[in-house]
C-alpha cells in the first residue's frame, strides 16, 4: 500500500455577503483571474469556480501537464449539487420560450459531471474523472476515494476536493436556517513515488464512509466512534492520538455541539474540537481540510461529516 501525501492545496472561500440568502458568496474577482487563457464562453459558474480552484492548486505545486503527455492522473470532484442550477435554468428557458429556443452551447452544462470534466480538459488530467455526489459528505468522500485510488496504486496523482454553489435554488433545497457559504477547493494527492521535489504538507492516514440506517441514527456518537476507530486502524495509528476533532453535520448548531462532545468523550480525547456552523453544502470537507493546511499545528486531525443517512471520516496528519 502506498502512503498518500497532500502536496498542494487551495480553497476559494466566499468573501461576498448576500444578506437575502444569508450566504457568503464567491465573488467573480476570486475566480476570474485564475481562468486567464481558458475559453469560458458558455461555461457555467459552478464549472468556473471548480476549474479556478483546480488550476490554482496545480499552480501552487508548480505542475503543468502538457496536452499530449499520457498520464493516469485522476479528478475527484465532490459536490452536493453540481450543475443542478444550470439544468434548471436550461429547462426554464425551454419552458418559457419553447424547446427550440435553447442555446445548444449551454447543453453541455446540464450533465452532472460537467465541472469535473472541465477540470480534466483544462488541467489535462487523463485518468479517471469521478464526480462524487454525497450530499454534505461530498468533498470528504471525494478525498477518501482519491486517497484509496492512490493508496492502492490505481493512479499516482489526483486532484480531490470539490465545490458547491448557494444560489436561491440550492438554498431552497437545503431548507434550513443556517448561515450558508460557498467554497471550492482541491488538494493535490500524490504517492511517495511522484514527489520529486518539495515537502509534503500532510499525509492522509485513514478513511471510512457508511450509510446510517434507522437504528444507528439513535446511537450516532457510538457509530461515528466506531468509524473513526476503523479509519485510524487502517493507517496503523490509535484514536487516542487524535489532537483535533472537527465535525460538520447536518444538525442544528446546538445538537451538532452535543454530538461532538459525546464523540469526544466516547473516544477519550484530550485535544481540541470544533463543530462547523456554516452550511457549506457539499464543500464542508474541503473547508475542514483547508483549515488543517492553513494551520501550523503539526498534529493528527480527524474530520467527521454526518448527514441524516450517511457519514464519513477522514484522518489527516499535518506534517
Amino acid at each position, binding site marked *: 500500500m502506498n502512503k498518500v501525501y497532500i502536496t498542494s492545496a487551495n480553497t476559494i472561500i466566499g468573501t461576498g455577503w448576500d444578506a437575502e440568502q444569508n450566504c457568503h458568496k464567491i465573488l467573480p474577482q476570486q475566480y476570474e483571474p485564475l481562468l486567464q487563457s481558458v475559453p469560458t464562453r458558455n461555461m457555467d459558474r459552478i464549472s468556473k469556480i471548480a476549474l479556478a480552484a483546480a488550476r490554482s492548486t496545480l499552480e501552487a505545486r508548480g505542475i503543468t501537464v502538457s*496536452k499530449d503527455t*499520457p498520464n493516469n492522473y485522476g479528478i475527484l470532484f465532490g459536490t*452536493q*449539487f*453540481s450543475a*443542478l442550477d444550470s*439544468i*434548471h435554468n*436550461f*429547462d*426554464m428557458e*425551454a*419552458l*418559457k420560450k419553447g*424547446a*427550440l429556443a*435553447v442555446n*445548444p452551447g449551454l*447543453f*453541455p452544462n*446540464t*450533465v*452532472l*459531471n*460537467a465541472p*469535473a*470534466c472541465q477540470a*480534466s*480538459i483544462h*488541467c*489535462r*488530467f*487523463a*485518468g*479517471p*474523472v*469521478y*464526480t*462524487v*455526489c*454525497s*450530499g454534505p459528505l*461530498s468533498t470528504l*468522500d471525494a478525498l477518501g476515494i482519491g486517497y*484509496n*485510488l492512490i*493508496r*492502492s496504486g490505481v493512479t499516482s496523482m489526483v486532484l480531490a476536493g470539490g465545490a458547491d454553489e448557494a444560489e*436561491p435554488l440550492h438554498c*431552497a*433545497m437545503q431548507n434550513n436556517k443556517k448561515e450558508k457559504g460557498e467554497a471550492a477547493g482541491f488538494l493535490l494527492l500524490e504517492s511517495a513515488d511522484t514527489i520529486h521535489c518539495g515537502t509534503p504538507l500532510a499525509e492522509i492516514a485513514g478513511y471510512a*464512509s*457508511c*450509510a*446510517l*440506517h*434507522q437504528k*444507528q441514527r439513535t446511537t450516532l456518537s457510538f457509530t461515528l466512534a466506531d468509524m473513526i476507530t476503523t479509519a485510524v486502524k487502517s493507517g496503523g495509528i490509535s484514536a487516542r492520538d487524535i489532537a483535533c476533532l472537527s465535525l460538520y453535520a447536518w444538525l442544528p448548531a446546538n445538537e451538532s455541539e452535543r454530538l461532538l462532545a459525546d464523540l469526544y468523550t466516547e473516544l477519550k480525547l484530550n485535544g481540541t474540537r470544533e463543530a462547523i456552523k456554516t452550511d457549506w453544502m457539499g464543500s464542508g470537507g474541503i473547508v475542514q481540510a483547508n483549515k488543517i493546511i492553513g494551520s501550523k499545528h503539526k498534529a493528527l486531525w480527524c474530520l467527521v461529516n454526518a448527514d441524516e*443517512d*450517511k457519514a464519513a471520516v477522514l484522518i489527516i496528519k499535518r506534517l
Partner: protein
Amino acid sequence: MNKTAITGMGIISSAGTNLTDFWNTLSCGTVTYKEIPEYKADKNFRTHIGARVQDSTWQKNLTEMQRQSFGKAALYAVSASRSALENAKIDMDTASRLRTAVVLSTTMGEIQTEEAFSEIRHQEGFGKIPQNLLRQYRTDHIASAVSSALQLSGPTYMVPAACAGGNYAVGLGKNILEWNLADIVIAGGVDVFSRVAFTGFQRLLSLSPDLCKPFDRERKGLILGEGCGIVILEREQCAHARNAKIHGILAGVGLTADRHHMTAPHPDGDGAVRAIRQAIQEAEGTVQDIDYISAHGTGTISNDKTEVKALETVFGGGSVPPLSSIKSMIGHPMGAAGAIELIACLQMLENNLLLPTVHYETPDPACNIDCVPGTARKAKLSCILSNSLGFGGQSSSIIITRG
C-alpha cells in the same frame, strides 16, 4: 488478488423489466423505441422518437411509502436493486447484516422531479415549488434511497459520469471490494426519460428522426432512452463459499478522460484507446482474448467513427472482433447504458449468442467492422469487452470473463 464476481442482475429497460423479457426482446432483434405522442403534438420538437419503459410491473416490489416519497430515478434504482439481490439469492437480512455498499451513476439525476417543479415555477412562481420535490431533486438521494429501502450500512456513493456512468460505477464497486470497504456492492446506472435531454440533443442535431442505425453509412443519430441496470458484485471467494451462481467475472476496468472537448470525442479516440488497453491489461489478457465487443455505438456520425478508429488502433485494422450495439434496439439510456449493456453481455456469455445491431444496411467505409447485422448469431464466448463513452470525454471499458 481476489477476483470480483458478478452474482446478481436487475434490469428496468424499454426491452423488458425482468431478465427473461429483456433477453427475449433483444435476442429476437426487436426495436423498443417509438413515437412519443406528446412530443409529436409540440411544434417545438422536430423529432419525436424515444424509448420509454412502458411496462409498469417493475413497481411491484416497492412499498406505497417509497412510491410516494422517492423520485422516479430512485424508484428505478430501488426496484432494480431488489431484483438484483433476489437474482443473486442474497436475502434482505444478509444484505443488511453484511457491509453492503451502493455505487450508482447517472447523467441527469432526478431529472423528472426537476421537470415537474420547473413547470410549477413557470406557471405559479418559485415560491410555489413544494419542499418534497426540492428534497427529491438531490442527486445523492438516489443512492441513499437504495440504502435506506434495504437498510444497508456500507458506503453509499452517487458518481455521475454521463453516458460512461454504468462502467464508472461498477469500476468503483470493484475497487471498493479490493479496498475491503464492503463485502457486497450494489452497482449500476440509472437515467429516466428526460425532456431536458431530449431538448438538448435535438439542438445538438444528435437525434435520429426515425431509426437508430449504429455503424451504418446512413446513420442519422441516437435515440434517447431510459432505464436502470444493477449488478451485484462480491469477492469470487465469497460467492463460491455460498455456492452462488457466478454470471461472470469483472476482470478488468479502464477509466480515462479524453481531456479534449465537452461534447466532441477526441478525433483519434485517445481516451477510448487508453481505456480499452487499461481494461485488457488489468484483466491480464491480450487483444486476442476478446471474443466480442459490446460497443458504445450510439448511432451518431462522430461517435461510431471515433469508436471504430479507437478499436482499430488497439486491435489493428481488419482484426477487430465482432461487435454490436444494442442501442439499435433500446436507444441510448444514458447513464444506465453501461450497466444495461453489461447485463446484456452477461446474458450473451451465458447463452453463447451475440446480440445483433438491427437496421444495419449500408456499410460505412469509416466503420469497417463486423457489427453482427440484423439477427443474433451463435458464438463461443469466454471474454467480452464493453465500451461506454460520455460527455466531457469520459471514457470507460470493462472486461468480463466466464466465472
